[in-house]
């Protein structure tokens, strides 16, 4: 072979190539044979399984494995096709981007789903409950409207400082609210405060019964608690002071033991209030203010009253009233009228007191009467008459007293007939004429020579358990003149 190679170089190469081809052919044939054998074996096994079914589970397991492998295979295929960063953010399977928005983070299906994001049934239920609450709220508001409107009216009066009207309106509002079974504690509170600012002490405990006792300790009921406390103290003071000076109310001024009574009243300032059985039983019902001491302003008021009864000098009386103002400046209802009246009679400027009274209650007629008295004391009778007539024309609530002031001015002017007419008008316009009005009518009747009218007034007073005042009887006897009565002492008819 080597020799042959050496002799002819081309032939050995052709022989070598042919042998390589032969080897490859043989190898392929061997492989075909192996594949055929394997295939035959697989077919035989399949046939055997089909015949007896012994190895079926294995085939099934194999089948499941095949199924499991398929997605992995497919995933790998899709990972190859769509990069992970381009997959839908919601499902993570499909390519992101929609027809309308190719840059969308979501696929078409997820995009449509997220645009119709489902409601949780519990959320819907809560929202429906809230809507139902709104409708129920409307119904509740409707049931409260009548009471609310009534309270608004009272509040309007209070804002306008018309406290008498406000008090009436609060009472009406509470009637409406109580009929609707509404326990409006703030309305009771306001009623108590308005009544207290007018000095109406009696009866303010009743609305307080609608407020829980423990609530009185809370800050928003602090003023009510204080008003009730002041009211209780004042009530106790009235009771104690009446026991002291009550028996001397009909005694002649000069016979009143002024110093002794004054000392007894003074002792009340430091005395403790004795606990009564009524207080104990009332306290069991609910909140009941308990007075442990007497009202200082109340004691001072009774000291002033004692000085008035005893016909002490105006300056002495004024001293007590000014002390009330210093002690309890907020209790204008207690001292305001008397202070103004005494200022008018002593020739002081009454305007600051009148303004104070107007600020406390716009419906208070006292400032008008004080101004009329001040003008009368300044001998400006025409001015006083003009003022009173102007206010009567406006429909003042104190028209009867204004007529009386007109009468006093006419008396001082010496026009007795006009004085009688004016006072008689006041008497007629008054629903419940005061003793002072009756005495003034009697005096003007005497001055005008109206004996019949004088007799009628005298009998009216006597039938009511009163007697004519000393000024009237002394005028009748000639011991006093009109000028003396109206310019000396109290400068008025008592």
């Amino acid at each position, binding site marked *: 072979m080597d020799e042959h190679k050496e002799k002819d170089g081309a032939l050995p190469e052709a022989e070598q190539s042919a042998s390589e081809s032969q080897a490859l052919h043989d190898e392929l044939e061997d492989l075909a044979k192996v594949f055929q054998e394997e295939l035959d074996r697989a077919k035989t096994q399949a046939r055997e399984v089909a015949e007896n079914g012994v190895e079926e589970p294995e085939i099934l397991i194999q089948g499941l494995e095949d199924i499991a492998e398929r997605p992995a295979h497919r995933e790998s295929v899709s990972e190859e096709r769509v990069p992970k960063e381009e997959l839908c953010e919601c499902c993570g399977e499909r390519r992101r981007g929609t027809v309308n928005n190719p840059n969308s983070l*979501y696929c078409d299906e997820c*995009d449509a789903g*997220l*645009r*119709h*994001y489902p*409601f949780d049934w519990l*959320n819907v239920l*809560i*929202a429906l409950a*809230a*809507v139902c*609450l*709104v409708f129920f*709220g*409307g119904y*509740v*508001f409707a049931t*409260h*409207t*009548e*009471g*609310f*409107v009534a*309270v*608004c*009216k009272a*509040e*309007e009066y209070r804002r306008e400082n018309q406290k008498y009207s406000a008090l009436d309106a609060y009472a009406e509002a509470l009637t409406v*609210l*109580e009929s609707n*079974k*509404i*326990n*409006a*504690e*703030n*309305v*009771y*509170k306001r009623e108590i405060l308005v009544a207290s600012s007018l000095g109406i002490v009696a009866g303010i405990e009743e609305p307080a019964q609608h407020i*829980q006792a423990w*609530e009185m300790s809370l800050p928003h009921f602090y003023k009510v608690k204080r008003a009730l406390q002041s009211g209780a103290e004042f009530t106790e003071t009235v009771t104690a002071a009446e026991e002291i000076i009550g028996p001397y109310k009909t005694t002649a001024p000069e016979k009143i033991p002024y110093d002794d009574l004054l000392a007894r009243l003074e002792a009340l300032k430091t005395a403790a209030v004795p606990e009564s059985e009524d207080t104990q039983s009332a306290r069991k019902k609910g909140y009941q203010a308990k007075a442990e001491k007497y009202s200082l302003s109340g004691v001072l008021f009774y000291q002033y009253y004692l000085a008035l009864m005893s016909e002490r000098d105006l300056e002495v009386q004024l001293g007590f009233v000014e002390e009330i103002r210093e002690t309890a400046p907020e209790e204008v209802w207690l001292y305001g009228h008397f202070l103004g009246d005494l200022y008018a009679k002593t020739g002081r400027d009454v305007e600051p007191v009148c303004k104070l009274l107007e600020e406390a209650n716009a419906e208070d007629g006292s400032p008008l009467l004080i101004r009329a008295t001040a003008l009368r004391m300044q001998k400006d009778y025409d001015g006083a008459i003009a003022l009173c007539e102007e206010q009567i024309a406006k429909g003042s609530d104190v028209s009867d007293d204004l007529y009386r002031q007109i009468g006093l001015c006419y008396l001082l002017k010496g026009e007795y007939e006009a004085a009688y007419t004016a006072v008689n008008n006041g008497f007629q316009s008054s629903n419940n004429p005061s003793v002072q009005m009756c005495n003034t009518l009697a005096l003007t009747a005497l001055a005008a020579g109206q004996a019949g009218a004088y007799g009628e007034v005298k009998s009216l007073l006597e039938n009511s358990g009163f007697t004519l005042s000393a000024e009237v009887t002394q005028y009748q006897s000639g011991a006093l003149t009109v000028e003396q009565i109206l310019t000396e002492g109290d400068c008025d008819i008592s």
Partner: protein
Amino acid sequence: MRIVYLAVKYITVIGTFLQAFFEHLTCRAYEILIEDGRYLRQNEMCGHIEHEILRKRSTSFAMCFFPFLFNLLIGLVTVSVGSVNVYYLGEFFTSKGFPNFLNFLFLWVGISALTNLFPQWEDALTLKEQIYGKGKSNLFVKIIAAPIFGILYAGAYLQRYGLTLVTSIAFSFAVPYILSTFVPALYNLVK
């Protein structure tokens, strides 16, 4: 500040919930894509729905305005009942002496709804951009939208810091006095 915001959101949870619910409702109505529909999350999105960026002006306005309107209506009714009964009339207890929880519930729901009136800050900014952005709207739209936009924008700003709780409580105090200016006249007219 986030703690304050979340605290206010959870104190006024019913208003927070309702606002998110109405945002969700608006999203459904306008087919706005919602990215996260949870109502009460412990982050700045508490009480808001996370949605796609709004590109249309009308959608943006609706997303800000309708939840505001619905919560305002709920808030006004319930806070009126609650504040009149509690503050003005003082109906703390029933006529039988039991605590009147219903009135306090009305007050709380009302204050909660009014605390959560306003859109999330991003929505308000989007609305601003779409109304007042360069070349976005004509002058007429800008003027007409100014009052409501001003309210929504200022409210959204305050709501970021939980300050709407203070404003809604203050408003609840004022409600009886506001009502007293026209309800009596209206009542007498109807009666």
